[in-house]
C-alpha cells in the first residue's frame, strides 16, 4: 500500500482542474477525487487491520523512505500507525463533506477547489510524515491556502481575520522550526551525524538541557495551531470569517495538526521535558476548557459560538496529552477525531443556515425547525454531540480523557482537581448549546421572510449524512477506534514511563 498515493491524488486533481473552464467540471472532478480519497482511507484501514492481525507489530506500517536532500539528512520518510490512520480517516471525511457543501460556490470556483485540494495535500502529508523536515514542509503547505480562502471567499471581517490567522500560524511555524532545528542539532546518529528521522530520534537520548530548552518552542508552536491558551485568539475570528468549507477544514483538521504535532514531535521525541513541563500544559489546557466555555456562553453570533467552543474542546486534546497516561492520550486522539467530525458538522449546519437567512446573529434567528427540519436536525445533532451526549462520539472521547486524568499516578490532588474542572465544562457547554438551539431552532419564527426558506439540497444532505455516520459510528461502537489507537499510544507512553522511572 503506497502511502504517497494519499498525497498524489489530491495534488494531481488540483493540477488537473487548473486548465478547466466552468464550474461544473471542476466540482465534479473534485467530488470524484475526494470520494476516491475516502475510499483510499478505508482501504488503508483495511490493509492496516490485515497487517496487524497477521501479527505485524512494527511501530509504523507501510513505510517508504527516499533521500531528499542527503547532505542535510532530510529524507522523504512516510509511514502510518493507528493514530495516523485515525487522522487520515478524519481528513477524508471532512474534505469530502467540505467539497459537497461548497457545491454552489460561484465566485472563482476553480481557484476555491484548487486551494481546498491543496490544503488536503498538506494535511495528508503531515499525518503520514516520519521525517521532521517533511512534517514541517507539509505543515507549511497547509497555511497559505487558508489565508487565501478566508481573505477572498470569507464574510465579515475577512481581511483582518485572514491576516491574523496567517500571521499567528506563521509565528507558530517559526517556533516549531526553532524547536525542530534545535532537536536536529542535538541528535547523534553515529559519527556526529545529525538526523531528522522521527523513528531514529525516538531511539536516541537527547540531552536533557537541550530538551528543556527546545520543548517549549515546539510545544508552543504546535500549540498555536491547536488553540493553546493564550494563543487561541486566531480561532474565533478565523473560523467565523471563513467560508463554510474552509471553516470545516480549519476547525476540523487544522487544529488537529497542532494536537498531532504536539504528540508526535514534542511529546514523543522529548519525553523528559514533556514530563517536567506537563503541569504547565495541564493548567493552560484546563483554563482553555473552562474559560473557553464561559466565553462561549456570552457570544451572540452562531459561528463565534462554535469557534469558541472549538477552543474549549481542543483544550481536552491538550489536557489529554499533558496528562501523559495511556488512557488520557488515547482520549486526546479520540477527541481529535470526534471534535473534527462534530465541528465540521456544526459549521456545515451553520453555513446552510447563513446561506439562507444571511445572518448569523441569534437575535435575528428563530423557529427554524418549522421551515428547515433537516438542517435543524443536523444542528441539534451537532449540538448534542458537542455537549457530550452518549451515543455520539463526543461522549466517548471526553469520558476517556476524564478517566485518563483521574487515573494519573501520583494520586496527587492537583490532577484530580484539574479533572473535575474539565468535567465541570459539561454543564457550561450544555448551557450555551441549548441556548443556541433554543433561540435559533425552536421558538417562534424570527421574521416572516424566514417562512419562505428552503430546506437542505442533495449535496448538503449527503455532506451532513456522511459526518453524522462518522459521529454515530464512533459513538455507538467506540471499540474499533479504541483498538486502532491504543497500540500506538502505548508506544508513546512506554517511552515516557521508561524514562520517568
Amino acid at each position, binding site marked *: 500500500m503506497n502511502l504517497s498515493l494519499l498525497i498524489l491524488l489530491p495534488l494531481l486533481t488540483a493540477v488537473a482542474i487548473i486548465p478547466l473552464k466552468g464550474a461544473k467540471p471542476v466540482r465534479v472532478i473534485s467530488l470524484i477525487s475526494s470520494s476516491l480519497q475516502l475510499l483510499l482511507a478505508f482501504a488503508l484501514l483495511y490493509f492496516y487491520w490485515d497487517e496487524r492481525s497477521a501479527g505485524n507489530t512494527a511501530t509504523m506500517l507501510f513505510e517508504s523512505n527516499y533521500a531528499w536532500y542527503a547532505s542535510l539528512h532530510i529524507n522523504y520518510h512516510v509511514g502510518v500507525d493507528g493514530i495516523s490512520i485515525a487522522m487520515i480517516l478524519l481528513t477524508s471525511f471532512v474534505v469530502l463533506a467540505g467539497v459537497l457543501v461548497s457545491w454552489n460556490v460561484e465566485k472563482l470556483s476553480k481557484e476555491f477547489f484548487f486551494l481546498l485540494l491543496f490544503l488536503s495535500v498538506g494535511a495528508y502529508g503531515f499525518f503520514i510524515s516520519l521525517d521532521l523536515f517533511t512534517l514541517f514542509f507539509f505543515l507549511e503547505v497547509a497555511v497559505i491556502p487558508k489565508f487565501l480562502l478566508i481573505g477572498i471567499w470569507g464574510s465579515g471581517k475577512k481581511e483582518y481575520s485572514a491576516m*491574523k490567522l496567517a*500571521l*499567528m500560524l506563521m509565528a507558530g511555524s517559526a517556533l516549531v522550526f526553532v524547536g525542530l532545528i534545535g532537536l536536529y542539532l542535538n541528535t547523534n546518529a553515529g559519527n556526529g551525524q545529525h538526523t531528522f528521522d522521527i523513528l531514529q530520534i525516538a531511539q536516541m537520548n537527547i540531552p536533557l538541557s537541550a530538551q528543556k530548552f527546545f520543548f517549549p518552542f515546539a510545544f508552543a508552536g504546535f500549540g498555536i495551531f491547536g488553540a493553546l*491558551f*493564550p494563543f*487561541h*485568539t*486566531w480561532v*474565533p475570528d478565523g473560523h467565523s470569517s471563513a467560508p463554510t468549507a474552509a471553516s470545516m477544514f480549519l476547525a476540523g483538521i487544522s487544529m488537529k495538526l497542532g494536537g498531532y504535532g504536539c504528540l508526535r514531535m514534542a511529546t514523543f521525541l522529548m519525553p523528559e521535558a514533556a514530563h517536567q513541563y506537563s503541569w504547565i500544559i495541564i493548567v493552560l489546557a484546563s483554563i482553555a476548557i473552562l*474559560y473557553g466555555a*464561559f*466565553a462561549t*456562553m*456570552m*457570544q451572540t453570533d452562531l459561528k463565534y459560538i462554535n469557534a*469558541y467552543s472549538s477552543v474549549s474542546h481542543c483544550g481536552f486534546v491538550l489536557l489529554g496529552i499533558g496528562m501523559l497516561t*495511556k*488512557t488520557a492520550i488515547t482520549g486526546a486522539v479520540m477527541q481529535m477525531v470526534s471534535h473534527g467530525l462534530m465541528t465540521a458538522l456544526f459549521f456545515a449546519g451553520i453555513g446552510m443556515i447563513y446561506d439562507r437567512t444571511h445572518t448569523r446573529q441569534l437575535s435575528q434567528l428563530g*423557529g427554524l*425547525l*418549522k421551515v428547515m427540519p433537516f438542517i435543524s436536525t443536523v444542528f441539534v445533532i451537532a449540538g*448534542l454531540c458537542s*455537549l457530550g*451526549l*452518549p*451515543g455520539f462520539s463526543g*461522549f*466517548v472521547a471526553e*469520558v*476517556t480523557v*476524564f*478517566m*485518563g486524568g*483521574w*487515573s494519573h499516578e501520583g494520586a496527587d*490532588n492537583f490532577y484530580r482537581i484539574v*479533572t*473535575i474542572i474539565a*468535567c*465541570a465544562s*459539561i*454543564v457550561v457547554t*450544555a*448551557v450555551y448549546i*441549548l*441556548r443556541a438551539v*433554543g433561540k435559533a*431552532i*425552536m*421558538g*417562534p419564527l424570527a421574521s416572516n421572510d424566514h417562512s419562505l426558506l428552503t430546506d437542505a439540497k442533495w449535496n448538503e444532505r449527503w455532506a451532513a449524512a456522511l459526518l453524522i455516520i462518522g459521529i454515530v459510528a464512533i459513538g455507538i461502537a*467506540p*471499540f474499533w477506534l*479504541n483498538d486502532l489507537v*491504543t497500540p500506538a499510544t502505548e508506544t508513546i507512553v512506554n517511552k515516557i514511563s521508561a524514562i520517568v522511572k
Partner: protein
Amino acid sequence: MNYSSYIALIPLLPLASFAVLGLFGKKYFKNLSGIIGCLVLLTSTLLSLYAAYHYFFVDGKINGSYQTLIPLKYTWLSFSDSLSIDMGIILDPISVMMLVVVTFVSLMVHIFSLGYMKGEERFGTYYSFLSLFTFSMLGLVVASNIFQIYIFWELVGVSSYLLIGFYYDRPSAVAASKKAFIVTRFADLGFLVGILILGFQSETLDFNTLIQRLTDIHSPQLLAIASTSFLGISLLTWALTLVFIGGAGKSAMFPLHIWLPDAMEGPTPVSALIHAATMVVAGVYLVARLFPVFHINEASLHVVTWVGAVSAFLAAVIACTQTDIKRVLAYSTMSQIGYMMFALGVSGYGGENARLTDAVGQGLGYTASMFHLFTHAFFKSLLFLCAGAVIHIVHSNDMKDMGGLRKLMPITSIAFLIACLAIAGIPPFAGFFSKEEILMAAWQNHPAIYYIGLITSGITAFYMFRLYFSIFWNRTPDSQLTTPLAADRVPPSALAVGQGLPKAQHHSEGTLSMKLPLVILAIGTLLVGFIPFSKFISPDGKPFVSEMHLTFSIVPVAIATIGIFIAYRLYFRRSDRPEKLAAALGGLYNAAYRKFYIDEIYLFITKKIIFNLVGKPAAWIDRNIVDGTMNGIAWTTGRISVLIKGVQSGRVQSYALYFFGGIVVLIIVFLYLWK
C-alpha cells in the same frame, strides 16, 4: 429457554421503533406510527412479564435468595486492563421489577396518546421520541456497569428534553426543556465525579464487582477508600454523596427540583410517563442499585434520608396552594419520591446476623421503597392520564376553569377517585400498603422521620382531595365553566398555561384509546397492593416476611382521613372558606404559592452571578486582553515600521551619507578594534 435469547429485545425493540419512526414516520407512516409504537411496546411488555415470571418463578431462589444474573455483556470501551465500560444486562429482583413497570406504564401511555395526540402534525415524531425514551429507560434499569447507567441516564435526559420541548414554538416550552436539561446536567456532573472516584478506587466499573469490593470489610479497596479523606470527609462519603446528587437531580429532590413543575409544559401523556412513573424514579433506583455500599456509609445515608424527607414535606406544602392541576401532580410526585428516598435512608440491610422475622432489620425500608415505586407508578400515571383527559375537554390546566365534571366524565372521575384514595394511603388501595411499610421502617429506625412522614401524608391527603373535589365536584354540573374557585387575592397564576394544539374538539370523555388505559391502571391500583412484595424484593436477595400491624396503621389512616375531611369541607361546594383560610395564613400562604422563592434564587445566581461575574468577564478578557495583546503586538510592529521607514527617504544624498558613514565605521573597526 435461557434469557439471552430474548432479554436484549426488550430495550432494543423500542430503539428500532425510534429509528424507523424517526426517519420515516413523517413521510410514510403518519397515523400508523401510533399503532406501530403500541405494538412494539406491547411486545416488550409481554417479554418483560415473561422475564419476570421466568426470574421469580421458574428460576426462583437458590440457597434462599434470588440470584443476580448477567446474561449478556460486551466490552464497549476499554480504558485499561481493569477498567472498562461494558454494555451488559443485569437481572436481579429490582431490575426485573423495573422492566415490568417501565414497559407497562409506557404501553399505557402509548395507547392513551393514540387518542390524545390525534391530529397532531408531528404524530410520528412524538411516537419516535416516546420509543427513544422507553429504550433509554429500559437500558438504564438493566445496566450492569456504572458508566452504562450514566450513558442511559444522559439518554433519558435528552429524551425528556425533546419531549418537554415538543411544542417547540412556545417559548415557555423551550425554556422549560432547557431548564430541565441543565439542572439535571449539573446534577450529572456530581454523578460523573462520583463515578470517577468509585471506579478508580474500587478498580472496576462493573456493579457487582464494585459492590463486592466496597462492602467486604477485608478488601483493600474498601480500606483505601475509607481511609483516604479530602477536606476531612472520607472519600467514600464524597463518592456516594456525589452519586446521590446525580440521583437527586433526576428525581427532583430539593434543591434540584425546580425543573419538574416547569416540565409540565410537555404533553400530558409525556408527563405521565416520564415525570411521574419512570424517569424521576431513576434516582431512587440508583440508590437502590448501590444500596449495599450506601448502607455501610452512615453519612451518605443520612444525606439521603434528610433530603428525601425535606423534599417530601416541602413539596406537599407547596402543592396545597397551586392551581394548575399538572403542577399539583408534579409536586405530589416530588413528595412521593421523597418518601421513596427516605425509606431507603432508614432501611436496614439483611445479613447473616439479622433474624428472618425482624422485617426492618432485614431491609423493610428498601423493600417498602421499591414497593412504593411500583404502586406509585400505577396511581400517579393514572392521575396524570386522568388529568390529561380533563385538560383535553376543558382546554385549560387551571382548577379555576373546572368543576362539576363528574357527570361529564364518569369513568375518569371514578379512576381519579381510586387514585386519590391510593395516594392518600386509605386501605385497601395500593398506596396504603406501601406507605405503611415505609412508615414502619421509619418508626423503627428514626422516629423524627416518621413524624415528618406522618404529617406529610396528612397534607398529601388534603391537597389530593382538594384537587379531586375542585375538578369533579364543587359546583352544579350545568353551570358555566367561568367562575373562579380559588382565593382572589392571589394574582392570576402565571403557571396556568393553556395546553397545546390537539386539533379535534371533543365534548365527550374521549375515545376508547383514552379510556382503556384509565380502566386498566385503576384495576391495577386496586390490586397491586396485595402483592407480597417482601417475598420478592429485598436488599440482599433473601426474601423475608413482613406483616401488617393493625395498631400501627390506625394513626396514619386516621390522619389521612382528617386531611380528606378538611378538603371536603373547603372544596366540596363552592364557598369562600378557602379564601378566608388563605387570608388567615397570610405570608405563609404567599410563600408557599411562590414555591418559597427558590426559582428566584436560582435565577439570581445564574443571571447575576454566573453570567455577569464569570461569563461576561471571560468574554471581555478574551476579546480585549488576550486578543488585545495579539492586536497590540501587531500595532507595535506597525509603529516601529513607521518609525524605521523614514530611512527610505528617496533622497540620494542621504543614502550617500549613510554609505560613507558605514565606511568610516568599518575603517575604525578594522584598524583599531579587530585584533
